[in-house]
Structures are given as C-alpha cells and as structure tokens.
C-alpha cells in the first residue's frame, strides 16, 4: 500500500490543491500531514478547511502551536531582527484571519501520530521547533528515532525533503565506577552497543519549498517495498504570490516562493532544542 506524507502547507492553497491532485491521480487514499498548515501564506482558512474536508490525519506544527498559544518562539527561530519582525507580522496577520472554528481545529491537533512503528512529527520527537537537517550528526539523528521507540520517523519543518538511512552503527564504551567502599583503583568494563537500522523521512514542504526549486514537495512511502519516492509538483506560484502581496504580507514571502529557497527564517543549529 502507498501512503503520502505532506508537511508545511503554510497557507498556500494553490500548492496544496496541486499536491492533493497529484496524490489523487496516483490512487493514493492514505495521507498524513505533519503540520504547519498556516503561517507566511495568504490563505490560512482555505488551507485548514481543505485539510478538514479531506479528513487528513494531521499533527501540530510550530506555527499551528504558536497561533493557538501565542507567539513565544525563542530567538533560535530567527537569524536576524528583520526576519523576526516579518515572522511576527505574519503571525499577527494569520491570527487575525483565522476563524474560531479553524483555531479550535489547530488546537485539537496532536503533537505526534503513530502507525505501527512509524512515528509522524513536525520537527522532531523532542520539539516542534527542532530541525532535523539531512546532514546533522548521525548519532544525534538516530537518537531522535530510537529514543522515541520508532523504526521510521517522518518529519518536516526543514522544508527540504530527504530520506536518511542510519545503519551498521555501534558505540563502544569503557566504564569505570567505584564500589560502595574505598578499595583501590576502579575496574574498567568494556561494552558495545549495536545500533539498529533506522530511517528519517522528511516530507519537505507543500507551501514553501526551500530546496532550490519552486515546486511543492511531498513523499510517498510504499509500505510493501519500503521504498520512498520524493515528489515534486509544479503549481501556480504566481497565484499565491499575488495573494501574498494583496493581503499586505511582507513581499519577501512572495520573493522566496518564486525562488524556492531562502535564508531569512532558517535556523542552522540542528542540535538546538528551543528552551522556551
């Protein structure tokens, strides 16, 4: 059975419609969404409505959380004050636009979803704000999957789709500890931990791609073969860009959609966990 995973929709209706059409065209009817339905983009209600209509199981993203609980992300989210100001403006605009019903829907979203030993989260099992970038420390990446008790971790948040396999791992340790009473030099004990094969699958971003191309991205997981397909879907970028400008949102949000990358809101420290 094939299963589609989408993430980071960011109130971009044209992109979501195109991705859902692509999924439908392939006859896939199991979809999971990893959150960030709103933020940056001009159609928060329309996007939330569509996710609700399609009854897509969804976990809560960092933007969804902040809209409900108030903007309280620490400055790790922004590399500059200018970027932070733009983020705050988008937050306020989105909060003003969102209907009570859709706000309640975002508040009801779980932090994570499970399917057998597949775990679905927005950022990482630790935090919706943590970035699991494709080149982060391999042991730290494995720890995120293993500590959660998952075999495969589906995440988003980075806006860059990837499939990472962590295998043939081991850690050797030498432990020296003291007995209860003083008794000379402590004995050393050597141990080895064999690490299991684990996978991290990042679904990329439907509504705000940052992989160097304007196409929306998502992934398809073929459960029978365990193969993962990273899909790129062209959509009407100009339609969304016009709506961003018409809504009075910062024009830089339209600029980066036209380029498919941006540096303004990317936090580079993959190991950082927001301590709000």
């Amino acid at each position, binding site marked *: 059975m094939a299963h589609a995973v989408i993430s980071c929709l960011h109130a971009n209706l044209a992109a979501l419609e195109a991705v859902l059409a692509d999924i439908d065209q392939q006859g896939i009817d199991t979809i999971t969404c990893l959150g960030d339905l709103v933020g940056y983009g001009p159609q928060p209600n329309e996007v939330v409505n569509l996710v609700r209509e399609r009854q897509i199981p969804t976990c809560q993203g960092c933007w969804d959380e902040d809209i409900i609980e108030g903007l309280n992300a620490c400055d790790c989210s922004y590399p500059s004050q200018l970027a932070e100001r733009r983020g705050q403006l988008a937050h306020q605009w989105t909060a003003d636009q969102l209907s009570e019903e859709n706000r309640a829907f975002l508040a009801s979203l779980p932090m994570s979803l499970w399917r057998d030993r597949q775990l679905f989260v927005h950022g990482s099992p630790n935090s919706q704000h943590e970035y699991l970038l494709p080149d982060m*420390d391999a042991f730290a990446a494995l720890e995120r999957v293993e500590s959660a008790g998952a075999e495969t971790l589906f995440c988003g948040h980075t806006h860059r789709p990837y499939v990472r*396999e962590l295998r043939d791992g*081991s850690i*050797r340790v030498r432990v020296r500890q003291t007995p209860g009473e003083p008794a000379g030099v*402590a004995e050393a004990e050597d141990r080895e*931990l064999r690490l299991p094969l684990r996978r991290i699958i990042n679904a990329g971003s439907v509504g705000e791609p940052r992989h160097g191309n304007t196409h929306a991205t998502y992934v398809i997981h073929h459960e029978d073969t365990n193969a993962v397909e990273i899909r790129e879907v062209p959509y009407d970028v100009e339609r969304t860009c016009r709506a961003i400008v018409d809504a009075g949102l910062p024009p830089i949000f339209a600029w980066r959609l036209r380029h498919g990358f941006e540096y303004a809101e990317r936090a580079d420290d993959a190991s950082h966990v927001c301590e709000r």
Partner: protein
Amino acid sequence: MARWALISGLRGDLEAYEAIQTDLRHTRRVDTLFVLGDVIGPERECNALLERLQQPRRGDLQPHCLYGWWEEQLLAERGYRGGRRADALRLSQGEAAVDALLQAVDPAHMNWLAALQFGFIELDCALLHGSSAAVDDSLGPDSSPLLLLDRLTRMDVNRLFTARSGQQFRLELSGGGIESQVRDLEGQRQHQQSVPQRQVIGIGAGVHYTIYDPGSDRLDFFIAGTKPKQRARGFA
C-alpha cells in the same frame, strides 16, 4: 593548571559540606569548587548551608553553584517558573514532601536560588546537574551510550560532568561508528561517522565528591572524612 572539585546532593547537610571543605583545604590542591545543584532538600533545615554557600568562611573554597532538581522544584512551587509548580515532586513524593521542602528553606534565600545558573561550560567541559536536555535527566553508567553521546553532542563538549544520578563513574566513548546515507532531490550521498572520544562523568552526591585535573584529564573519586590512603580511586 587548576584542579576542580565537583560536589552535589548536599541537601542541606552542612556537616558534609564542612567535611569536604576540610578535605580540600588539607590535601587536595584544588582551587575551584563547583557545586552541581541539590544543595537543598526536604529532609532537614537548609538555611545554615545556604548561608555558608553565600558567605564562605575564611579558608573555604569559594563555591560556584548551579541549581539542581530540588532547587527547580522549590523555585517552581514559589512561583519562579511561570505557571509551573513542583509537580514532579508532588507526583513522586506527595504533598507532604512539598510542604517539607517549603519549610526547609527560608524565603529570604529565594533570590539567591533564583539567580543560580543551569550549567557551566569550562574549557571543553559541561558541568550540569542532569544534562542539557533537562535538570532531571539522570545519566548513569548503565544509560544508553546513544543517549549519552547525544547529551554530549547537544553541548558540543568533550566532557560532561553530571550529578543527577548520585553515582560516581567515568564512561568513555572508546570506539564505533555509523553509516549514514542521505537521498534528496540532488542525489545520494554516504557518510561514515566515527564515535568521538568523549566522556560522561558522574560526580557523586553528599560526601562522595570528585576531583578533576583538566590539564592531565586525571579524575579521582573521594569520600570526605575517610582516611587519605583509602580515599582515592583515580585514573587518568
């Protein structure tokens, strides 16, 4: 180079603190004292120890203190942690323990406790009560090496000194590796990563304390008040 003494878990025990200070003064050639939290606890009145830490006597090593799990519970219960209260303590030991903790510390000490830091970074070492993940992160010799490596990686340090478990141990990551394969829209790449040579050190609690020499990487575990020839269990 300066030698460090690392202590924790005094939980109001001024006698234990004095025994350690006496040890350090007479025999240990230590010039920096780190107190990694849990200076308070519900078992006894803690004010005398708190006063001594804030106003060392002549000859005492000046203590550099962090907050630990017990301080975190008290600070939460006294309203220093926003809406949170001492829920972890309440859940694990009941309302009576919360009351005992409130009784054990004079409110006059709260500002000093609230100003304590979460951790210190000295040279390539992190000094914490638990770990960078949380103050209640109890790391011990039987903790998963993957988890220990993660805690070291988060801080990007070579030595992590931790106190939460109360145990004295030295765990060296001595070898191993992992293969990582990433596939994205640009293609596929493989990377082999080795386990870095890093260590997690449990410093003990109460009269069980640790001396570390960052210059030689020598580590010794001691019990305050015992005879010198029996005390040391050192390894470099």
